[in-house]
């Protein structure tokens, strides 16, 4: 499935949040969405998920996304938000099973396909041994993995994830991007917003740098991640290095503060 935005814009209460967004997501791609806080990353992800009124064109396989029913959309595009609050202490397996809602007829029992999808999602995220644990007895990282499993159980060709590795320890950060990369290899399309530039640079096929509601640049990680651009958009000076697997980007000091000290 191809998700494509052309001259996309979003205005909320007379404020422009996104403008002139041109972006195409192809199957098999793991695309990283980077940019400073307030750049519009979350709004872009929500808009691509079909949840925000917008100007411009947004198409899924060359058909306007708005023309799909809510249920059709939910079988094609999965969305993992930043909100990790789970209102009731459902078990982990039940929360993951919520990802099957787009496939279930009213009042039906879960099908074999539903059970298989949940079991697979629990196994991919290594949550099998926690399947029957109420979700209010999980650590923050376990909640994040449970919600990731919920997204995986939805089995959508396109996955949109808003800061999926925030709050995870290094091992689980790596495990999460590994899952997304594997899913892309398997033909899914993944767009995830990330703040860790090293992870973004090494794992994503392509990066999209957003600042002030516009796409500054998109392309191969090496082309997007340059010292000048990082300084301009994030206002930080970063150390750039490289090993056999790709770039290493470590932010070291604020550029703005540095200038102020010089003056």
């Amino acid at each position, binding site marked *: 499935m191809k998700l494509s935005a052309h001259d996309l814009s979003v205005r909320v209460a007379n404020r422009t949040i996104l403008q002139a967004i041109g972006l195409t997501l192809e199957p098999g791609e793991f695309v990283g969405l980077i940019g400073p806080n307030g750049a519009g990353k979350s709004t872009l992800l929500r808009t691509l998920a079909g949840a925000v009124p917008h100007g411009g064109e947004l198409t899924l396989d060359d058909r306007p996304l708005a023309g799909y029913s*809510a249920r059709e959309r939910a079988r094609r595009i999965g969305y*993992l938000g930043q*909100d990790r609050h789970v209102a009731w202490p459902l078990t982990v397996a039940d929360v993951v099973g919520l990802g099957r809602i787009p496939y279930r007829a009213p009042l039906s029992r879960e099908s074999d396909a539903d059970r298989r999808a949940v079991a697979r999602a629990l196994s991919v995220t290594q949550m099998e041994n926690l399947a029957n644990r109420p979700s209010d007895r999980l650590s923050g990282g376990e909640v994040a993995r449970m919600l990731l499993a919920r997204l995986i159980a939805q089995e959508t060709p396109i996955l949109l994830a808003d800061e999926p590795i925030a709050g995870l320890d290094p091992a689980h950060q790596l495990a999460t991007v590994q899952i997304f990369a594997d899913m892309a290899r398997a033909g899914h399309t993944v767009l995830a917003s990330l703040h860790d530039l090293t992870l973004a640079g090494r794992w994503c096929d392509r990066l999209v740098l957003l600042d002030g509601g516009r796409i500054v640049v998109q392309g191969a990680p090496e082309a997007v991640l340059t010292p000048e651009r990082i300084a301009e958009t994030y206002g930080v000076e970063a150390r750039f290095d490289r090993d056999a697997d790709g770039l290493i980007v470590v932010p070291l000091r604020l550029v703005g503060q540095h200038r102020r000290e010089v003056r």
Partner: protein
Amino acid sequence: MMRRPSFPALVTLLAILTAVLFASSLLVGPSDIGVGDAFGALFGNEGVTTMVMREIRLPRAILSVSVGATLGLSGAVLQGWLRNPLADAGVLGIGSSAALGAVIAIVSGLAYASPLALPLSALAGAGLAAILVFALAGQGEGGNGLILAGVAVASLTSALTALTLNLSANPFATLEIVFWSMGSLGDRSLDHVYLALPFMAAGWLLLASVGRSLDAMTLGAETASSLGVRVAWVRAVILFVTAAAVGGATAVTGVVGFVGLVVPHVLRPLVGSRPSRLMVASALGGATLLTMADLAVRLILPSRDLKLGVVTAIVGAPFFFRLILHERRRSMR
């Protein structure tokens, strides 16, 4: 792992309990009618006994079960949608606006002209409140918009009720509205059933369609929307259907508090907290609690006209205490 009954077992148990209480409700009353005679008269034609059974006890039993089910169900639905364990139809201002409708009927004298004027006026009050809440809350997805609008409407209608009583020339109006606000199933006829039941039954059917959406709302409106829930639509359905069903119930019984709040609370752990399952369990649990309370009203102090809402609160509060203590232990672990 917490041990809990399977969902079918729980539903079967609650259904049997409801059926037994419904039958008991038919057997309790001031006229001394034996079990065999009672059911014989209900289905046959045995003069006065049949009249007592069909026109006094049957409406009361039907109303206690259906009103209880409506209150329990709507509490479960609103708590699930608003993601708030303290929600019930009261937070949407439905009870207080129905009370305003009732007070207007009493003060204007309409209530004395026709027995159905008061319930109809109360129902109209609940409907207007729902429209006002909907208009105030706007199209935002958050549950807080609805709660804030509900609280605002509830304060306005309470103030208007007080004002109406304040200016009323009828000295008994205050007394009547106070009693009405305690809820009762005494002296209800089949006309009351015909008035309220269609609203309540339509409500059950329509609310049955939102179960999956409530499950999805466990993860918030954004995620629910990405799971295919039409958030704005479901929200409107829940608001208006709840207002109609609870409005219909409240119109004939007066305000019966606590059922919508406590029943979902007590049953939630028993259904693994799943909102859609809680709907079924709470409907049956509400029917059970209200019918039990109505039996208590008639068996304890039958001569003092104990009010239903008073008893539901007294029966329900200890459950609530137990739950709070349980939660406290749980969080301290």
